[in-house]
């Protein structure tokens, strides 16, 4: 179990991490969702030991690891750009850790060969050992990077936007493979990403990093349907967030979040009884295939989105520039108090 408590990191005037409390349980695929610049890479670099926290503690199974040099921490790090050794072959890259680590290096060539081959077959690259790094594709490099990290059997594997450098098709396939590989290895993965779909698909648990803090850490479905705060809701890219005052006195004070798919639209003044509503101007629609997004501008300028599934259309025909009433079931709204 990897535990971070009250971890802070500042660069001059800017605070990258501000008292992060975070737990990665044993044998878990943990996703860490954060916008670019939210400090996710900093968090990984602190865990791996490339940088040290200004405050706070990092420990694995109760043993403190902050302050230890990175090569003695026994933590795997898969880089976004893979960071393979360009002058070595695939097999030499993969066996690097076994051969040259300061702690218990393996010198038996047969053992190195066997373990290299078995980890290469685990990532689906049997028979690629003799290839040069420049002679394999992006997806294969990703696998070599993963194999190189896994062969040392680290206590936790950190993945820094591991799919960012791959094309969309490959990304979907690597998603499934990463999950399957992790289940076979039974080691915890901490996967950092800026994509909410990737985080929700991959994670057994998803944590949201915002403003230098972990704002929520939950199972993906819980996080998606019950974000605890505005920041978490905003990162999911599925919630309209607006001032309660826009709905009149019905919703009281504070900030309200309603999911894109739980808002209905009707002509002005035709809202069914008992449903809170707000008035907004229809801006434009966007057709995405199976779904269609409609954009509205509320009176205070907030942008609102309504999603419509083609199989079950529920929006009326709308004219750009006209005002409509957007309404939702009272229990569909999540209300947050405090600053948005």
């Amino acid at each position, binding site marked *: 179990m990897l535990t971070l408590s009250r971890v802070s990191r500042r660069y001059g005037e800017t605070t990258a991490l501000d008292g992060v409390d975070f737990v990665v349980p044993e044998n878990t695929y943990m996703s860490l969702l954060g916008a670019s610049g939210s400090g996710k890479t900093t968090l990984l670099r602190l865990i791996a030991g490339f940088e040290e926290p200004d405050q706070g503690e990092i420990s694995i199974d109760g043993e403190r690891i902050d302050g230890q040099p990175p090569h003695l921490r026994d933590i795997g*790090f898969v880089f976004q750009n893979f960071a393979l050794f360009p002058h070595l072959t695939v097999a030499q890259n993969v066996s*690097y850790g076994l051969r040259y*680590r300061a702690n218990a290096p393996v010198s038996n060539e047969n053992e190195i060969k066997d373990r290299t081959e078995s980890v290469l077959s685990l990532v689906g690259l049997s028979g690629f050992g003799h290839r040069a790094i420049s002679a394999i594709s992006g997806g294969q490099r990703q696998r070599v990077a993963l194999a190189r990290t896994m062969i040392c059997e680290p206590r936790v594997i950190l993945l820094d936007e591991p799919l960012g450098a791959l094309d969309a098709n490959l990304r979907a396939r690597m998603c499934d493979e990463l999950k399957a590989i992790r289940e076979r290895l039974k080691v915890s993965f901490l996967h950092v990403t800026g994509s909410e779909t990737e985080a929700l698909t991959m994670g057994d648990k998803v944590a949201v990093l915002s403003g230098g803090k972990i704002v929520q850490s939950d199972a993906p479905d819980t996080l998606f349907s019950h974000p605890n705060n505005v920041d978490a809701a905003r990162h999911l890219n599925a919630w309209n967030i607006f001032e309660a005052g826009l709905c009149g006195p019905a919703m009281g004070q504070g900030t309200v979040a309603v999911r894109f798919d739980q808002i209905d639209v009707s002509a002005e003044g035709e809202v069914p009884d008992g449903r809170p509503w707000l008035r907004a101007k229809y801006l434009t629609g966007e057709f995405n295939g199976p779904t269609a997004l409609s954009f509205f501008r509320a009176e205070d300028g907030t942008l609102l989105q309504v999603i419509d599934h083609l199989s079950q259309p529920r929006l009326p025909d709308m004219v750009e520039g006209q005002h409509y009433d957007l309404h939702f079931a009272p229990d569909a709204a999540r209300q947050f108090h405090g600053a948005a």
Partner: protein
Amino acid sequence: MTALSTDTPTKPTHSPAELREKQDRRRAMGLLTPGLLWMSLFMVLPMCMVVYVSFWTQTTFAVESTLTTASWERFLSSSTYLSAIGTTLRVWAIVLVATVVVGYPVALFIGLFVRNKTFQTALLVACVIPFWTSFLIRVIAWRPMLGTEGAINVILMKLGIISEPLTFLLFSEFSVLVGMTQIYCVFMVGPITFMLGRIDPSVIEAARDLGASFGTIFRRIILPLSLPGVMVGSIFVSVMVLGEFATAASLSGRKVNLLGNIIVSQVGSLKWAFAAVAGVVLTIIITAVIALALRIVDLRKEM
């Protein structure tokens, strides 16, 4: 019957691909011509001339174009000249090793440990500052440093480490080696710094994450990745040191005779054929050294 003609037009027109190819070839020729002209006029032609002249007949005051191998025989049978080859090779090897030993750590610091690009450039420029004075001044400046009354002897005597001035410091092979190392070191630092600067920092972090200590990372990752820089630096230093004569002339007190010094003195006494022999020998040595360097590191992979 009017059928649609399926014949291609018989008029000999060129396809766009052919035209493009022609244009590219013309451009390549245009870019190559000045260099080719220059090299053939001022390098290939004179080289052939040197080889030719080395077989001319040398008399005391003149040289005539009757072919003979006399100059070669005299050169290859004289222990003075053969030992000059030995001295040249020895000085070259020692200076090469010294520039690597002194230059590599400097390059390692500038290229790998200084991550600020501006500071990096400033440090590299600082390495070039000595070149703002003339070559001869830089060489001669070693005399007040190394001489019997020079700075080093005075300091060592004041500190009581030695009682007599050290005489091997100046007008010896040692002073030639020191002078050459100082002058040519920067040609080693530059290429190595460049190669080290190209190493992706995350590659080094990855090696560290895999459990390797800094020493291992240096041996297994940093050194192999910077070797092409060492090779390019070595080629620069080799070419310059092998053809050297000025440092030896002004710092050795005429005790160290390099092939370059022989050429200078033979040309000075109008022994053209003999100077040509030394020139050909020197050219063969330099060619061999460069061929060897290129064999050790495949520069094609680094371009």
